[in-house]
């Protein structure tokens, strides 16, 4: 019972912070310098783990599908399944999980250290709004960066799938490419990208919320970092299910 109440309280506090972030985003002046800095450190800084995750995911999917489809004599269609799986599901979700681990923990540690050294209190005492100064630039940077990283992951994932399919099944790269283009529609791409915007929001708001509410000194900062990673991963997985259900209901 207490766990349920805690969850409701957590979701309520998260909703409140989201509303404040939205208000800070709507009302100028914007913290553009901070936003650009965050886009660079959270977005561009995450390209390497995105590429690594995507290429291996694409390759593994190709291995699994090509061997699985062999029994039905359909392994030449591996490209269709790999591209669909990556673009609709694994590209956005795995990118969000990995970037969430990297960026969300960073936010929690940074804002957590600021909270325990009273720097967040100081921002308020000096007449500024910590949500505007710290939270809004981070959340918005994540919401911009995640779809872009997802596009990168989609491309690299399909590329990885192609390498393995060409090797294992013996199709030509051109055949693989034509299958991908034939299979994927704009709806599939938007399905994945739409989810990734929401994942960006989940990662950003969770990391910032957990960080800002850190108590208990350096030990608290450590706990917050762990908590942010776990909470953002759960957030991504649960919202992925709900959003997929929604998108399928809307567009099929």
């Amino acid at each position, binding site marked *: 019972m207490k766990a349920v109440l805690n969850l409701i309280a957590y979701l309520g506090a998260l909703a409140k912070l989201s509303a404040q972030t939205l208000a800070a985003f709507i009302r100028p002046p914007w913290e553009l310098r901070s936003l650009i800095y965050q886009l660079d450190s959270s977005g561009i800084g995450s390209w390497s783990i995105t590429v690594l995750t995507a290429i291996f995911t694409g390759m593994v999917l190709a291995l699994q599908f090509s061997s699985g489809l062999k029994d039905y004599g359909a392994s030449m269609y591996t490209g269709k399944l790999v591209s669909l799986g990556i673009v609709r599901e694994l590209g956005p979700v795995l990118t969000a999980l990995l970037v969430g681990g990297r960026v969300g923990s960073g936010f929690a540690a940074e804002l957590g250290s600021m909270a325990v*050294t*009273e*720097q967040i*209190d*100081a921002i*308020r*005492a*000096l*007449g500024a709004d910590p949500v505007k100064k710290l939270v809004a630039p981070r959340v918005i940077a994540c919401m911009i960066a995640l779809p872009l990283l997802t596009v990168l992951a989609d491309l690299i994932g399909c590329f990885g799938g192609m390498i393995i399919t060409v090797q294992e099944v013996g199709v030509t790269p051109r055949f693989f490419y034509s299958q991908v283009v034939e299979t994927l529609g704009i709806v599939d791409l938007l399905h994945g990208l739409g989810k990734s915007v929401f994942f960006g929001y989940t990662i950003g708001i969770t990391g910032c919320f957990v960080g800002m509410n850190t108590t208990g000194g350096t030990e608290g900062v450590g706990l917050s970092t762990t908590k942010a990673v776990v909470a953002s991963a759960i957030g991504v997985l649960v919202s992925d299910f709900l959003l997929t259900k929604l998108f399928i209901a809307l567009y099929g």
Partner: protein
Amino acid sequence: MMPTDPTPSPYDQDPIISFSNVKKAFGPKVIYEDCTLDIYPGETITIIGGSGTGKSVTLKMLIGLLSADSGSIKAFGTEVTHLAEPKLLPIRRRVAMLFQGAALFDSLTVAQNIKYPLREHRWGNEKKLDERVAEVLEMVGLPGSQNLKPSALSGGMRKRVGLARAIAIEPEVILYDEPTTGLDPINVRRINGLILSLQKKLNVTSIVVTHDMDACFTFTDRIALLHNRRFSFVGTQDEARASPDRYLQEFIAGGKGTLDEDVE
């Protein structure tokens, strides 16, 4: 509670800050049950009390960093409790706070730290900001340290930069949260000297939270003792010395008195 000396007294005026019947708890832990305190313009008042009794909470409630559960806190005639964040801005313009660990922003230089409140309160153009930064750094005895990062400063220097940042917007009230805790004797003297000189030069009202009784007696007009979740004693230095309150006397005597009694 009124001092008897014939010099013009701040106590004849209306209090600029008043706490009445304030109650505050963190979860099951009650910090204040019925806390009442008036603070008059131009005075220096020191809040003393054991560790963990919530002395800093008083300061934080005053500028709205924490909100009281019930009761009333008035600053400059405005009710502060449950005021929305934007409406607290005018109060924060007039009341500055020196945090316990100075709370300097690590990512910014000394000059950028001091400019932070000036920018928020629209002090003026960049040239005016630079002038003001130089001026306040001079006041705290750290001229020329504009481009240092907080990580390059010692504890005492950080406190002084924190103080420079607090006084930059020319506040009417300065809140000091344990200004000398954890500093070496030379820095303790220097910070206490600064509190005293700011008090004289700028005629600000100061509220100091401290454990340091020696320092307290060098600059304070009145003492407020936080004990048993309320201000059990509020009065001048002389009144404090003459008070029959045993806990207060132990506090004034410092560690010695308690130790002797423990030995007996």
